[in-house]
C-alpha cells in the first residue's frame, strides 16, 4: 500500500501540468470499424497478466475492495478500453490511473478490456430503491429538465447496452464511485464523455438524486453528498460557445459551514476551509477518498474522525497531519498548507466555523469538541 | 353499347354531368385548399433550402 501512495504522488506533479492542456481535447477513441475490431481481438489471457498490477485497487477479479475505486469486472470492453485510452491521452484526469496507464500500449488496453469483460460482476443484488421518483428518472427520465432515461443507454437494470458502442454497465458498481463520478461529470471535472453526453445529464441532477441513482445501481444505500469540494481545475478552461452554466440543481462548491456558536466556539474560517478543500483534493483525496470515506488511507470523516481526534487537544491532530503527512514525504507540507487541510477536515465533520482562522500556535492547546 | 330501353336512355341523357360537377368541385376545392396551405402555412413559415 505504501509503495502505491508514494508512486502516486510522484506522478501528481506531471499529471497536473497536463490538466489545463487536456481540458479541450476530446477523447481520442472513436467507434470506427478498425477500433471496434481491434478491441474485439483483445486477448483476455494476456490481459490477466497485466491485471496483476491493478489488484491492489481493483481487486483480484476486478471487484474492487474499496467503495472509492470502481469495479471493472463484467464491464463492456469498449468502455474499459476507452477509459484506459483517455487516461493515457490525458483527456481523463486521475493522478493514480495516469501513472499506471502511462506504460500501457493500445494492445495492452484491449487485452485488459477483454479480461475484465469476462470476469463475473460484483455488487450486491439491487436492494429496493429508496424512492419511486428515482425509478421514474431511471425508466422515463424527466422531460422538463431534458433528462433522458438511464435505461435507454445503460440498459434495463444498468446491465449495459451491447447495441450501443462503449456504453458502461452500472449494475453492481460501487455506490461511492458512482456518486463521485456523477458529481465529477456535473462539475465538469470529468469530461471524457463525447459531446458532453453525461455532463449534460449529471449537471441537471441534484445531489439527492445522484445518491438515489448510486443506491439503485449499486444495490447499497449511498447518503447524499454535499456538493463535491471544487477540486483543482474542475471548471473546463475554455467554456464552449454556449457554456451551460451548472444551474441551480448542482449547488456551488461552498462548504456547508456549521453554524458558529459565537466567535469563541469557531475554529476556522470558511475561506480557509475552501482553500483546504483544494489542497485536500490534490494531495490526500487519492488515499483518503474524495468524500473522505477512506480508501487506502483511513476515513477522515464521521466516526473515525471523532474517535481519533474528538475531545483531544488540537495538537494531536496537528502533529498527525503536519508531521506524518503526506505519507510519501512526511512533514514536507508548509504549516499553512497543513492548517488549511485541517480546517477543511474540521469543516467536513461539522466542527463550527468562526471569524478567526485556525492557526498552529493559538489553537494547539484547545480541545476539539467531542461527539 | 348495352341494349337500353328508350325509357332508360331518357334517364341517362344527362350522364356524366353530375359526375363532372362533383369531380370538378372536388378538384378545384383540393387545389384551392392546397394553395392555401402552401402559401398560408408553408411559405409563411419562412424559406427553406
Amino acid at each position, binding site marked *: 500500500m505504501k509503495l502505491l501512495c508514494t508512486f502516486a504522488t510522484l506522478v501528481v506533479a506531471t499529471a497536473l501540468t497536463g490538466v489545463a492542456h487536456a481540458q479541450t481535447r476530446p477523447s481520442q477513441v472513436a467507434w470506427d470499424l478498425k477500433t471496434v475490431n481491434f478491441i474485439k481481438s483483445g486477448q483476455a489471457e494476456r490481459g490477466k497478466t497485466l491485471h496483476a498490477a491493478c489488484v491492489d485497487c481493483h481487486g483480484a477479479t476486478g471487484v474492487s475492495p474499496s467503495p472509492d475505486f470502481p469495479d471493472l469486472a463484467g464491464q463492456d470492453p469498449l468502455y474499459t478500453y476507452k477509459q484506459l485510452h483517455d487516461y493515457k491521452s490525458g483527456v481523463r484526469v486521475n493522478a493514480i490511473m495516469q501513472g499506471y496507464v502511462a506504460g500501457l500500449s493500445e494492445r495492452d488496453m484491449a487485452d485488459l478490456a477483454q479480461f475484465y469483460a469476462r470476469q463475473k460482476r460484483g455488487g450486491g443484488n439491487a436492494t429496493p430503491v429508496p424512492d419511486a421518483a428515482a425509478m421514474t428518472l431511471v425508466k*422515463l427520465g424527466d422531460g422538463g429538465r431534458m433528462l433522458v432515461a438511464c435505461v435507454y443507454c445503460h440498459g434495463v437494470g444498468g446491465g449495459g447496452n451491447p447495441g450501443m458502442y462503449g456504453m458502461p454497465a452500472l449494475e453492481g458498481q460501487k455506490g461511492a464511485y458512482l456518486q463521485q463520478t456523477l458529481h465529477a461529470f456535473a462539475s465538469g471535472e470529468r469530461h471524457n464523455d463525447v459531446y458532453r453526453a453525461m455532463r449534460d445529464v449529471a449537471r441537471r441532477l441534484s445531489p439527492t438524486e445522484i445518491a438515489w441513482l448510486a443506491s439503485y445501481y449499486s444495490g447499497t444505500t449511498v447518503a447524499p453528498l454535499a456538493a463535491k469540494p471544487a477540486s483543482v481545475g474542475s471548471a473546463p478552461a475554455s467554456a464552449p460557445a454556449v457554456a451551460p452554466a451548472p444551474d441551480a440543481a448542482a449547488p456551488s462548491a461552498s462548504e456547508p459551514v456549521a453554524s458558529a456558536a459565537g466567535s469563541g466556539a469557531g475554529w476556522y474560517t470558511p475561506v480557509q476551509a475552501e482553500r483546504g478543500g483544494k489542497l485536500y483534493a490534490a494531495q490526500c483525496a487519492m488515499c483518503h477518498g474524495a468524500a473522505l470515506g477512506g480508501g487506502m488511507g483511513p476515513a477522515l470523516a464521521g466516526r473515525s474522525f471523532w474517535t481519533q481526534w474528538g475531545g483531544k487537544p488540537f495538537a494531536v491532530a496537528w502533529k498527525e497531519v503536519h508531521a506524518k503527512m503526506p505519507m510519501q514525504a512526511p512533514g514536507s507540507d508548509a504549516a499553512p498548507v497543513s492548517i488549511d487541510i485541517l480546517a477543511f477536515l474540521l469543516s467536513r465533520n461539522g466542527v463550527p466555523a468562526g471569524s478567526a482562522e485556525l492557526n498552529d500556535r493559538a489553537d494547539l492547546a484547545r480541545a476539539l469538541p467531542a461527539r | 353499347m*348495352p341494349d337500353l330501353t328508350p325509357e332508360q336512355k331518357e334517364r341517362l341523357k344527362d*350522364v*356524366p354531368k*353530375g*359526375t363532372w360537377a362533383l*369531380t370538378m368541385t372536388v378538384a378545384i376545392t383540393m387545389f384551392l385548399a392546397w394553395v392555401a396551405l402552401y402559401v398560408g402555412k408553408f411559405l409563411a413559415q419562412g424559406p427553406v433550402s
Partner: protein
Amino acid sequence: MTTNIAPAPSGRLVLAHVWVAFLLFGVALLLGVYQVLARDGVLGSHAASYYASTTLHGVVMGYALTIFFITGIGYAISERALGTRVWAPGLAWLCFWVMLAGTVLAALSILAGKASVLYTFYPPQMAHWSFYVGAALLVAGSIGWIVITLVMSAQWKGAHRGQNLPLAQFGMSICALVWAWTMVGVVLEVLLQLIPLAFGLTQSIDVNLARALFAWTLHPIVYFWLIPTYVFLYTIVPEEAGGYLFSDEMARVAFVMLLIFGLPIGMHHLYMDPPHSAGFKLLQGIGTFLVVIPTMLTGFTVWASLEISGRLRGGTGLFGWMRRLKWDDPVVLAGVMALFMLILGGFGGLVNAAYAQNAMVHNTQWVTAHFHYIFGGVAVTGYFGLAYYFWPRLTGRALWAPKLALAQIWLWIIGMNILSLPWHYVGLLGMPRRIAYYAYAPEIAAQWLPWTGIMIIGGVLLCLSGWLLLLILFLSGRTLPASSATMAGGFARPYEATAVLPRSLNGFALWNWLLLALMAMAWGYPIVQFFLVKQYPALPWGFS
C-alpha cells in the same frame, strides 16, 4: 329456391389466403388500439413494447395483410375474369406456405423484441436475422402469384386472338407488374445489405444506398395495395350497383398511367435526405404530380359509372342520382366510401409530394395520418367490398347479415375519420412520428393532448369494425343455406362500345420497356452515385 352451388374451383386457395390476411388484420388492429392509447399516456410508458407493437402493426398491415389478400383475391378475380382455373394451383399453394412461413418467422422475431426496427427497417439499426429472412420469404412467395397472373393473361390472349383482355384481368396483370417492378428495391436492400449484415458476413452498411433502394419500393408499393381496390371500383361496383362501367378504355389508360407514373417517383420519400440533389428531387417531384391524373381519372370514371346506376334507379337532376344509389348493398357502399376517402387521402398526398413543402410535414404525424387515411380508408375499404362480393361466390353461402356488413363499413369510415382528421391537425402542430409516450416537457405535449385523446375513440371504432368483419365472414361461410348468386355473375359491362384496342392497351411489353427507361432515368444516378462517390459506411447498431 336454394340450389347448392359448388364453391368456385379454387375457393379453398383463395379463402386460405384471405383468412390469413384478415386474421392478421384483426391482430394488427388490436395493436393499433394499444398504440393510440399508449401514445396518449393512458397505458403508462413502455418504449420497448410500443416500438415492437408499431413494427408488428406496420409489417402486418403493410406487407402481410396486403400480400395475402391481394394474391388470394387476385386468383379469384383472374378465374372469374378469364373463366379458367388458376394456372398451376400447386405453385400457388407452395407460395402460400412459403409466405405463411415467412410471416410467422418475422412475427415471432418481432414479438420476441428482437426486431423493433419498424416496417421500414431503418439500417444501421439492425434486427435479428430471422426478421429479414421472414420478410424475404413473404415477398419471395408473392412472386408465384405474379407469374401465375401473367401466365394466365398470356394463355387467354393466345386462345382469344384479337380480343381485349378482360378489364379485371388487365388490371390485375398491371398490379402484378407493379409489384414485380416495386419489389426490386427492397429485395436488393434485404438480400444484398441487411441479411449479410445480420448474419455478420459484412461488418458495415451503406445506409444511404439502403434508403435509396427502399424509397424505390416505398411509393409504388402503394399502387400494388391500391390497384386491387381500383379493379374492384372499375369492374365490380358498377355491375353490383345496377349500372355500367362508364369507359373501359379510360380504365385501361388509368391502369397504365399508374404503372408508368407510379414506379419512378419514390424519391419524395427522400426529399429531406441530404445525399440526393435538389434536381433529382424536383424531377421525381414532378413525376409524383403526374400520378395525380390517373387517380383523378379513376375518380371520374367510377363516379360516372355510379351516376349511371343512380339515374337508372330513378335519380334525376345534377346530384339526385347520389341518393338513388344502391346504398343498402355493402359492396356498393364500400365502393362509394372508398371514393370519398380518396379525396381527403389524396389531399394529404398533395401536401407531402409538393417538393419543398414536405419540410412542413416530413416525419410529423401528418404523414401517418395521410397513409392511414388513404391505405386504411381507400384500399382496405375496397378489400372489405371485395370480400363481401366474393364470399358468397367462394363459399356457396349467402353473406350472413348484409345489414351488419353495412354497419361494419360505416363504423370503419366513421372510425377512420375520427382517428385521422385530428391526426392530420396534430401533424401540422409538429408532433413527430413514432413517439412511444410523451417524454418531452409537459407544456409541449399539452398542445397535442386533446387531439390524441379523440384519436383513441377512432382507434377503438376501427378495431370494433375490423372484428365485426371477421365475425360476418366467419358466420357467412358456415351456417346459412346456399345463396342464389352464382360464380358466373359477370363483371361490369362497358357503357360505351369499346373497339378492339391497340396492342399497347392490351399488352404489357411496351410499358415494361418504357418503365426500364424511366427507372434508369429517375433512379440511375441516385443509386449509382453511392458506388461512384466515396462513402463512409456505418456500423450496425441495436435499437434497445
